[in-house]
């Protein structure tokens, strides 16, 4: 019977490779972590399911005219989806705590050391002949240390699309692991007394300051580092819609329906890069290892910078808030709050950590712009 042959040849049992089977298990693991452990579920559910679909043999969902491949081409290759997500994040971000204490921007700068140290690590592995990353790939891997999903996807899409799947997985996984990765480093680098430092209460910030800030930030970018303008421009646009008060219906749609729709398709599109051929390589292991290093170094740099600033600052700075400089909004700020409460049950650091937290978003976007300018 020809048709039965055709049916058998078309089945997954006949076509599946060992790699595809492994990727299906990895995708199920991502779904398990997202659902049961609540690891960044918005992205890991969608990426995980996309990975599942991409490894169904013969279905061709992630290649040619398959839906996931079309989504990838339309939304990720062009950079549109990460930029729209960034607009939505802007519409969700309150710069109030940052404006009340602008010097915490420096903590967001320090934490970007994780990015550049990781870049160097990736190049070192290549110099040692263990891996084979070129400068663009190393730069894309480094951005994992920025702890910012859309930034990492945007940069990887520009500089190293072949690594995009692994980089996105690493970025979101470690962002989810922030409550596990950061506290030991934070405790190692600070004393109980430092962690107990009570910070001066933040002043309230006027609406006009909040309206002007995104424009000010964009103008600085325009004059100094235009290659960061796509990312920070969309971020500032979302934030201006949020704060300006006259387009509330647009801001509302941006931070709800629009960001949700784009998140679904971004996740599926990233998932389309989890094909066995491109994901199951030794490079992926290298990326996962380097990503972990990037987070750790970024956390340490932030904390050490805060300690340094504390020496010179008139008002006390609790060094824990430096750890929030990696971004991973708002998880890192919550971790800071939790570790701070362990040392001093009356010390609420959440608001103070929000400043460096959003500063970290700006910092890694600046680093991303620089990488794109220099390496391309």
């Amino acid at each position, binding site marked *: 019977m020809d048709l039965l042959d055709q049916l058998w040849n078309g089945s997954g049992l006949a076509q599946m490779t060992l790699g595809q089977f492994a990727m299906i298990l990895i995708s199920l693991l991502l779904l398990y972590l997202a659902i049961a452990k609540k690891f960044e579920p918005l992205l890991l559910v969608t990426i995980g399911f996309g990975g599942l679909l991409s490894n169904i043999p013969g279905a061709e969902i992630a290649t040619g005219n398959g839906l996931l491949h079309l989504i990838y081409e339309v939304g990720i290759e062009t950079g549109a989806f990460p930029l729209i997500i960034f607009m939505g994040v802007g519409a969700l971000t309150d710069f109030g705590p940052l404006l009340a204490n*602008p*010097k915490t921007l420096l903590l967001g700068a320090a934490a970007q050391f994780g990015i550049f140290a990781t870049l160097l690590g990736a190049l070192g592995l290549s110099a040692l002949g263990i891996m084979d990353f070129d400068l663009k790939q190393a730069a894309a891997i480094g951005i994992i240390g920025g702890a910012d999903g*859309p930034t990492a996807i945007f940069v990887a899409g520009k500089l190293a699309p072949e690594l995009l799947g692994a980089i996105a997985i690493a970025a979101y996984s470690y962002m989810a692991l922030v409550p596990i990765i950061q506290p030991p480093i934070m405790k190692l680098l600070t004393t109980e007394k430092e962690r107990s430092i009570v910070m001066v209460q933040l002043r*309230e910030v006027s609406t006009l*300051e909040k309206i002007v*800030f995104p424009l000010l930030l964009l103008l600085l970018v325009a004059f100094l580092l235009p290659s960061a303008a796509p990312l920070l421009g969309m971020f500032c646009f979302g934030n201006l819609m949020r704060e300006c*008060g006259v387009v509330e219906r647009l801001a509302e749609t941006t931070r709800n329906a629009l960001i949700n729709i784009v998140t679904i398709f971004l996740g599926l599109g990233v998932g389309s890069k989890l094909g066995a051929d491109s994901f199951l390589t030794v490079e992926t292991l290298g990326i996962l290892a380097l990503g972990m290093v990037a987070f750790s170094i970024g956390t340490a740099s932030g904390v050490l910078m805060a300690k340094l600033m504390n020496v010179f600052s008139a008002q006390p700075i609790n060094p824990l808030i430096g750890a929030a400089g990696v971004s991973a909004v708002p998880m890192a700020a919550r971790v800071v*709050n939790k570790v701070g409460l362990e040392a001093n049950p009356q010390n609420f650091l*959440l608001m103070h950590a929000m400043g460096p937290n959003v500063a970290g978003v700006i910092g890694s976007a600046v680093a991303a712009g620089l990488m794109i300018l220099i390496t391309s």
Partner: protein
Amino acid sequence: MSGLLESGIELMMIGMGTVFSFLTLLVFTTRAMSWAVLKLGFATTPSQTNIGHGQAAGAGGQGVNTQQHVAAIAVALDTHLSTKNK
């Protein structure tokens, strides 16, 4: 290969230098902007009083909230941000 490492080191130095310079400049311009808004009295332009998404818009200085108030805001913000999408 060591050429690659060298350009990595150079990129790291330029990179951290740029990030720090940019954010330091942002600290100063932000302070200048806040100073201009608050001390030059712009904070009372119509753009401020007419907008409507329910935030306290007080010009700086009157902040004598209690510790409980800040904690309440912190909890509210935390709740708000827990639904935030990154």
